[in-house]
């Protein structure tokens, strides 16, 4: 009995360590393969021009593109996803909720290349027509497509967050004479805040890291639009650049190392956002339920 308990504990701890090691190994690999690039290119990374055969490695336009599509995607997906989650968690009957939720979760299982091809065939054509553009392959198209891709994640996590709030909270609130919308606005949403933040972070990670679908609809040109908020022009994200050029960069070349460096920057961004939002928002005492 004692032995099996010990073995169980050892097994669980080992599994946790393996998971933690993965991120350490990836970070280590990225740093080992890119530190020379940072030394050799240095401030050249902040240049606007990217032309590997000529030794120019400016990544500013790609960093800009990644931020632009992230802002667009999250500002579409969050309100939409949160509202849908309020609907599934607070307004649907429990038996219906399971069906509706599973159906929405199916969307998360569609491979990203399928989203990408649909984006090329329909969404980019739609954007081209709607805004009377030369080409529908724009930063906006990429942002919308990403919003659709992270929507199921946002919905299902926000829904879980709200559904986990004990019924007694709602009953107490209603007992105090609050209208149903006040119960949601003043009791359920604030109580679920921490887990909604978790959903946002997961969505953010997916948006920053998504490659295939973005690559097909973004236009892949290394330019920052003028003026810079004009997202109706083609652009490039860090991931679309990696997707297009990783395979052709010779292993160990400066080109290859700069690309790995870009992947490192991407990972650091995600880590940065996670750490900052956890430090600022995470407050265990405000988490009303466990």
């Amino acid at each position, binding site marked *: 009995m004692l032995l099996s308990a010990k073995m169980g504990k050892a097994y669980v701890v080992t599994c946790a360590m393996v998971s933690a090691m993965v991120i350490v190994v990836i970070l280590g690999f990225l740093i080992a393969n890119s530190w020379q690039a940072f030394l050799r290119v240095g401030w050249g990374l902040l240049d606007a021009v990217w*032309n590997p055969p000529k030794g120019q490695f400016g990544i500013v336009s790609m960093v800009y593109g990644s931020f632009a599509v992230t802002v667009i995607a999250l500002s579409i997906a969050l309100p939409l996803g949160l509202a849908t989650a309020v609907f599934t968690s607070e307004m649907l009957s429990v038996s219906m909720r399971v069906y509706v939720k599973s159906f929405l979760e199916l969307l998360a299982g569609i491979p990203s290349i399928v989203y990408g091809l649909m984006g090329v065939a329909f969404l980019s054509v739609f954007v081209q027509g709607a805004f009377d553009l030369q*080409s529908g392959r724009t930063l906006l198209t990429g942002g919308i497509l990403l919003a659709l891709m992270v929507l199921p994640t946002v919905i299902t996590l926000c829904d879980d967050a709200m559904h986990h709030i004990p019924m007694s909270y709602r009953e107490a609130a209603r007992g105090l004479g609050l209208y149903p919308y006040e119960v949601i606005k003043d009791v359920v949403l604030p109580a679920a805040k921490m887990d909604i933040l978790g959903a946002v972070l997961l969505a953010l990670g997916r948006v920053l890291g998504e490659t295939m679908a973005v690559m097909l609809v973004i236009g892949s040109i290394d330019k920052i639009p003028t003026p810079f908020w004009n997202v109706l022009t083609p652009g490039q994200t860090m991931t679309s650049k990696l997707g297009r050029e990783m395979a052709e960069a010779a292993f160990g070349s400066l080109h290859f190392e700069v690309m790995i460096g870009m992947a490192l920057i991407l990972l650091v961004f995600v880590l940065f956002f996670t750490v900052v939002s956890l430090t600022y928002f995470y407050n265990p005492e405000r988490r009303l339920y466990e």
Partner: protein
Amino acid sequence: MRLWGVILLLGALLLGCGKHEAVMVSGSTTVLPIVSKAADQFQITSPNVSVIVNAGGSGVGIKQVGEGKVDVGMASRDLTALEKETYADMHLKVFVLARDAVVPVISSEVYDAGIRALTLAQIGQIYRGEIANWKTLGGPDREILVIDKEKSRGTRHVFMEKVLGDKEGDAPGADLVLGSNNEEQTAIVQSDAAIGMLSHAWLNDDVKGVAIIADGKTIAPTLENIVNGSFPITRNLLIVTQGEPVGLVKQFVDYLLSTEGQKIVKDSGYVAVR
């Protein structure tokens, strides 16, 4: 009992794999149609061999054969000095498989509106961003959607060498940067004011090739003009192996260069070389 069955089945699968040998090919999407058709034919005559063909572009093909990830690389351009230097130890051997032309292509709407021929200098001005509207060239009043390709693509090397005078030159006038022939074709079809570059074999009714005006003569992108060498942007389509090919790889390369292989070249819309 059931477990033994599973183990036996797995064993049989493994044995099956052992007998089955594979030739891995990757690279240029211009050469791809020839090689994938040839692979199908080759596997009919040699049923125990599978030939696995992947796309990726000339740069990818040369890199992967140079690093030993595939047996045969496809390229629609010559190796660059840097590539020759990087993979010098591999003694890459290059075979000319076919001849092809890179044709400046425009949306059918622009073609129908009267743009049938351009000079290389005009195309250069478009890619440098000096000409931005079809009206300047006598076409409709529409801004030109300039479609560029990824830097390592064979089609771009050959095209830009003639158009910009530098195969790896920058094209500040470009609006989109795409990869494979398929992607380029789709983008041109979806636009009514696009210009791009495509292999001759990829032209169709929606994607029209324009003639090139050189020395006062208008040279249309026809097979005949490619064969007699008068069309200005032509190139060899190559297959690349590590050293002198042996065994299965040699059989497959020999097949590509044989009369049957060269017939596939012609059927795919390219010019046979043997």
